[in-house]
């Protein structure tokens, strides 16, 4: 029994040489292939290729044996391992066969197809081997989004970004949105379903609580007694330090985050706001909101298609600005600041992008009543500036179905109290600008009563200057 166990240990020891040695026959095999297909065929080169193939076969078999030894460690997902193992054995068999055929000088078609088959088998084996070591998403994980688009691969998941951005941080679940992405990024490539170094998995709450071969790794409330934290804090040269040498270490902020989470109970359900925050964690948390502007409008949760460049170009020809509101969003802001002379005729082109427009700034333009129905057909409109235009009370009626409109600027228009009723019907409305209109104070009061939630700006009413105690202004020297 003891002997068997010692044998097992030796197997695993030699197994660790598999990832090192295996690259040698891979390179040699491809070299043989290159010589076979691309170099001038002479009897001399034939002999050389055969000799390379013999060595390749020998190293392949040794590597495969070592691979089998490594498999005994039990750190890999059995299913993925099976595929790699049988492909590896196939490669060895093919290699033996190919060497024999080549040596025997059999016909070209047979050798060529066997060669191609072997190299193909080798490539696939290698790929599965790589997946075992680095994780199945390793190869393309850092492909930029533009490349993903071209290849039709779905966008990188949160885990691949440096610090995932969280819109509503206080409401975020600490484990799901902060801890898990971090573990996925830095830990689970070795502690996952397929590969369990130290018999530990860190990919689900259950397995995190279960711990590894030396017992639990998390001691709730006691970060410094938790293996999960202790290992991170060890000196980088310590053999128990995690992640091991060669893998990307956790940053100080990341360690602080895990420490904070364990310290406050290593809970899997609690929100950021439910854990007490301190000076150390504040800047760490702040990093999660650096790139985020809280966009309260529900519009921003929707996805719209990119506006057609040709449509935008036509709109821009009129001097209108029509640009995405940000680099990563397809919503469009239209601004007529450089086109005070546009009228309904030119604005008609906006109908092509009506599904994308969220901000429409038509202040000081010649827009008139007929265009209102076009505006009403912009379902995602959030901000509408119609200041200093000729629009009337009657025109506002057409806007009442805009479901997301939050702000309307009517400064300098002939709007009167009568038009305010239609504004009151726009449920999503938050801000109304009515300065320099015919709206009276009474009208504003009525609107205020109908919609106490509205912020109504009807112009500055204060009496300035305000008095300053004049004695203080000329103090005695």
């Amino acid at each position: 029994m003891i002997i068997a166990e010692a044998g097992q240990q030796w197997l695993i020891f030699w197994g660790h040489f598999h990832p090192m040695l295996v690259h040698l026959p891979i390179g040699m095999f491809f070299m043989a292939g290159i010589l076979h297909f691309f170099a001038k065929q002479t009897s001399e080169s034939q002999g050389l290729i055969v000799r390379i193939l013999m060595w390749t076969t020998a190293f392949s078999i040794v590597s495969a044996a070592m691979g089998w030894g490594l498999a005994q460690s039990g750190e890999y997902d059995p299913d993925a391992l099976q595929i790699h193992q049988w492909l590896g054995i196939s490669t060895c068999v093919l290699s033996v066969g190919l060497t024999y055929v080549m040596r025997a000088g059999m016909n070209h078609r047979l050798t060529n197809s066997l060669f191609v088959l072997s190299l193909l088998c080798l490539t696939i084996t290698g790929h599965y081997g790589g997946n075992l070591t680095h994780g199945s998403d390793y190869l393309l994980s850092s492909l930029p989004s533009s490349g993903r688009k071209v290849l039709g691969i779905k966008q990188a998941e949160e885990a691949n970004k440096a610090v995932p951005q969280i819109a509503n941080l206080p409401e975020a679940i600490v484990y799901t949105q902060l801890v898990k992405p971090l573990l996925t990024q830095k830990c689970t490539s070795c502690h996952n379903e397929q590969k369990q170094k130290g018999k530990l998995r860190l990919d689900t709450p259950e397995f995190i609580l279960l711990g590894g071969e030396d017992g639990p790794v998390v001691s709730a409330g006691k970060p410094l007694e938790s293996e999960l934290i202790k290992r991170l804090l060890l000196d980088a040269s310590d053999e128990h330090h995690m992640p091991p040498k060669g893998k990307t270490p956790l940053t100080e902020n990341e360690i602080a985050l895990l420490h904070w989470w364990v310290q406050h109970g290593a809970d899997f359900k609690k929100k950021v706001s439910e854990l007490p925050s301190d000076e150390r964690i504040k800047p760490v948390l702040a990093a999660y909101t650096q790139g985020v502007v809280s966009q309260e409008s529900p519009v921003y949760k929707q996805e719209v298609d990119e506006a057609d460049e040709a449509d935008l170009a036509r709109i821009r020809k009129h001097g209108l600005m029509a640009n995405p509101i940000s680099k990563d969003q397809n919503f469009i802001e239209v601004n007529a600041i450089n086109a005070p002379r546009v009228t309904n005729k030119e604005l008609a082109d906006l109908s092509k992008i009506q599904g994308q427009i969220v901000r429409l700034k038509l202040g000081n333009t010649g827009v008139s009543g007929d265009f209102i129905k076009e505006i009403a057909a912009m379902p995602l409109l959030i901000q509408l500036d119609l200041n200093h235009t000729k629009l009337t009370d009657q025109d506002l009626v057409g806007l009442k179905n805009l479901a997301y409109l939050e702000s309307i600027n009517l400064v300098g228009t002939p709007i009167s109290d009568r038009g305010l009723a239609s504004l009151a019907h726009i449920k999503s409305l938050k801000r109304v600008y009515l300065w320099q209109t015919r709206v009276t104070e009474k009208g504003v009061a009525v609107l205020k009563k109908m919609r106490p939630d509205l912020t109504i700006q009807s112009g500055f009413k204060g009496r300035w200057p305000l008095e300053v105690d004049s004695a203080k202004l000329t103090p005695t020297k």
Partner: protein
Amino acid sequence: MENEFFKNRLNITRRHFFGQAAAGIGGLALGSLLVPELFKGDASAQSLPLGVAHFAPKAKRVIYLCQNGAPSQYESFDYKPMLNKMAGQDLPDSIRGTQRLTGMTASQDKFPLVGSYYNFKQHGKSGTYISEIFPHIGSIADDICVIRTMSTDAINHDPALTFLQTGAQVGNRPSMGAWMSYGLGSENKNLPAFCVLLSRGRGNGQGVYSKLWTNGFLDSTHQGVVFSSSEDPILYLNDSDGIDKAGRRRMLDQLAELNHEGFAENKDPEVEAKVQQYEMAYRMQTAVPELTDLSKEPDHIIKMYGPECLVPGTYAANVLLARKLSESGVRFVQIYHQGWDSHGNLPQEMAMQAQDVDRSSAALITDLKQRGLLDETLVIWGGEFGRTNYCQGKYTVDNYGRDHHPRAYSIFMAGGGVKAGTVYGETDELGYNVVKDPVHIHDFHATVQHLMGINHEQLTYKHLGRRYRLTDIAGNVLPGLIA
């Protein structure tokens, strides 16, 4: 043939070549991203329009009311009654710690604490304490966010102002406005993205220098354009006598042709920048006179800003002009108002300075608000550092001075996504050190850029072999300031 080829290549320096190669690919991508019209072949739109932010911006434009010379926080926004109680007593060493002092007070053997000469009052629903010499700003307390914990690295005006404006104490980096111009461009194609207005108060003044609004290593089209208070708000903008519009146009066309030829030969990007600047100046010839004509502002607006706003070159006039520029789509309007350097005679100087800026600063915010523009315009008011809580020179009850203090000082911001009606940060009872929520200049820059939809770590420019940004290698966005 081959010779000619090499001759041309020789005109390009190695660094320039690599810079250009990078700009050719990266720049093309950036350009098309920020200025979609850029590659559409439409000459009139070529030089400018709107950029696209990294993420949806809260603020579209900035008006920076820089109070040059460092107004005292103790007589404005950081209410410290303890200083009045302890007036005349020495600043304890435990509070001062290792803080270095300027040459002006380093040799003082006593550091007598001094409280505010003026009373403070709580304002608005927020109950923000504001000194009585700023009654108008007090009246809009619910629209502003007072930051009481600004801190800087520099202790003298020149490096501190340079740091505040460019993120570095040495004067070779682009100013905040230049970065905004570079990142976002101008909204109005007839006006530069970055404009600068200068004024001088009645207090002890400190200079302003063109390095504060420099484009640094960025293309010179991003440099701040200074408006003067003279008859010609922008010097040399108008056509000389005897030259009509058509003649001007012909001249510019010919000149551009020559410049393009020159560019083809020497590949100096500044040649192209020059052409763009000529074109901008041409377009400004009609846009600027309209803007700078304040006579058409209605009476009630003049009454808000105060009668001084009709006197060109005053702070009030500049603030009103700043509103007009911003309203017209100028991305970044920078105002400098000198006269806050009260080393002595503070009670009197501070009151005069406050009188100059209080009403019009408050009017600007109120005016933007009634126009529906405050939501997307960020207004910043403040200086380059604060002043000491102890007296410089001889202390008497109604006359004292204060030296420079970099550790903690107050500014305020309004509009553009800032949390209105709040006070951010806390200083100790003597106002000397930050005890809660510090705002370093780098954090301030990061936050302002964030409000503009810019990720401060991503807006970079490669120069002398490395990438620079406004916050260089520091700065955190402060969510506590953002609504």
